[in-house]
């Protein structure tokens, strides 16, 4: 950001008659310092992505080989019922975790913001699950959701002897077990981000709203939330990247089962790449994942940045 600003201001200072320097040499130290990062991005990120895409058109088995087979890997991918289940599941997981972690996270943050007692204690409690890895989270919820011993047994012990709750071995609902565990782990973090955003709102705005007699819920909805837009965007990006890459949680919690009912795309990629030695198939799947992300990301980035440009020009 700051780089952009200095670049835009530079022509103004040159107009005052100072010696003209080659544009490449401007801010030289900053550019040199950025070289490693640029290289990492170009080689590690762009380079490897291109490599993946190229090899997704080959029939590579365990090791990459340049035997191009066209769209065959993609044909097989889209025919696979496991891949279809994976895509459906990541949609369910994505929508649920976006809506609930944002919603619940924001409500928790608002509750925290009411100058309650023991705020630190509550904050620690809510944020604590975030300190656990997904593997641990998965195992903990595997025990909690176990139909024979977990929460179900506790409720049966209380007296509801016919109570049945066994979503882990239920084909229809096993993906929601992953949603529950994911929310438990991530919501506290969203709450912390939101709380920071709420604390960043000037107290004078609250005072002004109160003077005008606006009820608190309307102040939140129409004044505070629009002011918190940057926080929401940061949170959205963090949650969204979490959705695409979710892998360890499934492995620990359900291992994709029962059957293929809780499989997710990242696990598909992993299984074919390492376990089943079909690099081409795995890379085809990861290319589809990448392009899905880009399809969502590019229009959004375009909108976001073109607006800013307009704003600076105006």
């Amino acid at each position, binding site marked *: 950001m*700051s*780089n952009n600003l200095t670049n835009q201001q530079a022509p103004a200072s040159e107009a005052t008659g100072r010696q003209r320097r080659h544009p490449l040499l401007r801010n030289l130290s*900053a550019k040199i*310092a*950025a070289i*490693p*990062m640029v290289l*990492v991005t170009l080689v590690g990120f762009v380079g490897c992505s291109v490599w993946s895409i190229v090899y997704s058109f080959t029939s590579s*088995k*365990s*090791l990459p080989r340049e035997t191009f087979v066209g769209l065959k890997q993609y044909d097989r991918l889209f025919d*696979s*019922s*496991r891949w279809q289940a994976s895509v459906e599941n990541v949609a369910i997981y994505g929508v649920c975790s976006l809506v609930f972690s944002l919603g619940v996270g924001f409500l928790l943050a608002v509750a925290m913001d009411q100058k309650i007692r023991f705020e630190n204690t509550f904050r620690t409690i809510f944020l604590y699950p975030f300190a656990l890895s997904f593997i641990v989270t998965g195992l903990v919820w595997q025990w909690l959701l*176990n*139909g*024979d011993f977990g929460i179900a047994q506790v409720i049966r012990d209380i007296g509801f002897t016919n109570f*049945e709750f*066994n979503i*882990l*071995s*239920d*084909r229809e609902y096993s993906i929601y077990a992953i949603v529950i565990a994911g929310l438990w782990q991530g919501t506290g973090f969203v709450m912390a981000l939101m709380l920071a955003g709420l604390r960043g709102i000037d107290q004078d705005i609250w005072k002004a709203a109160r003077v005008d007699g606006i009820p608190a819920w309307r102040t939140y909805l129409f004044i505070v939330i629009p002011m918190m837009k940057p926080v929401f965007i940061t949170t959205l990006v963090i949650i969204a990247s979490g959705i695409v890459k979710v892998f360890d949680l499934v492995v620990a919690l359900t*291992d994709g*089962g*029962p*059957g*293929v*009912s809780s499989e997710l795309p990242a696990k598909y990629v*992993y*299984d*074919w790449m*390492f*376990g*089943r*030695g*079909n690099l081409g*198939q795995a890379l085809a799947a990861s290319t589809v994942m990448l392009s899905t992300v880009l399809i969502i990301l590019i229009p959004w980035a375009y909108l976001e940045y073109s607006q800013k440009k307009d704003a600076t020009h105006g």
Partner: protein
Amino acid sequence: MKLNRKLIVSAIAAATASLGGLASSANATELEVTHWWTSGGEAAAVKVFADAFNAGGDTWKDGAIAGSGGTARPVIISRIIGGDPMGATQLNHGRQAEELVEEGLMLDLTELAEKEGWKDLVRPSSLLDACTLDGKVYCVPVNIHSFQWMWTSLDAYKKAGVDAPADWNEFVASAPKLREAGITPLAVGAQTWQTNGMFGVIRMGLGGIDLFRKTDVERDPEAIRGETMASIFKAFGEARSLDDENNSIQNWNDATSQVINGTHGAQIMGDWAQGEFQVAGQTAGVEYDCLPGLGIAPALDTGGDAFYFPVQDDPEKTAAQLRMASMMISKPVQVDFNLKKGSLPVRGDVDLAAANECMKKGLEILKDPANIVPGGDQLFSQDTLGQLEDLLAEFWTNPDMTPEDAHDAWATLYEEAD
């Protein structure tokens, strides 16, 4: 800018950390051995190897990887490809390691094999063939494992007041009685390889070796889409209905415990389940019984475990690897190991007087070469096996999928297999 500087620092830190990880120190004759033998009976068997290797003056560094082969194999393979090879590793025979061998990442054991005459010792010879590529030996077969077994709880049948079944058809017929007594007829772990293996057993039991040869070896399209295969899928659908609907068991040995405790009638599982019955102190023919080939077709597949030795730079380590290979196939170790593991030894010349009822049944079947079928690992790539596994797991858990649908999808995978 501040953010950028932080990123650079952390990138450098990460890079140095990963470099540090590469330079691991090691003792000259300490060999790390990775395997996925973690259940009670399996761990006891591994200890036989470890003790024998340590007795020879070397050090066995145990690298057990919890979970099934499906979990362990990626760890093992990525370590070898990634340039951090272990001293020795368990893998199943056949095509799992084919590419690693082709890339020259596995130690060539031909010299040792010729010196000790493995070719004449190993029985059936297909086990050594599976270790051989272009005339060179790359692995040591250590046991013969067969999936073609069904284990029944005689206690459960006593409780239900029915005679214990002698074959699959009797088992299906007795299932309602078991249900009445509150016993679930079939114990199955939810892991996909178990469903897959169970299908293989039902297929071999009901279709026989001839059908297997036609479908898996010759890939005869008529047999693949034929009547018998259709009836096998129906039987597999029947088995699906005998499972506990809310089954939350994952591991095969947990399912075996259900049979040991008599809460479940039977389990279709390979002979490694026998190790669990032995750890629980049960005797074949008294508390539990075994039906090879579902009691119908006397057939055993001869898959098994083998050890591979990834190429090492250090010549002392290479020498230790050869010592380990020689130890694993030696007579006393073979007997000890296989008694603990519940499997059969790979050498024909060892004394198995201590074998129990079930093992004797198995040895009897093995005597006739016509009863031996090659394991699936040797006929299909992991890629195809993975697809088949997914299909059968989906069928098992999805009651909306009819046996006809599953048969069709299965046949398509066979036709497309490489």
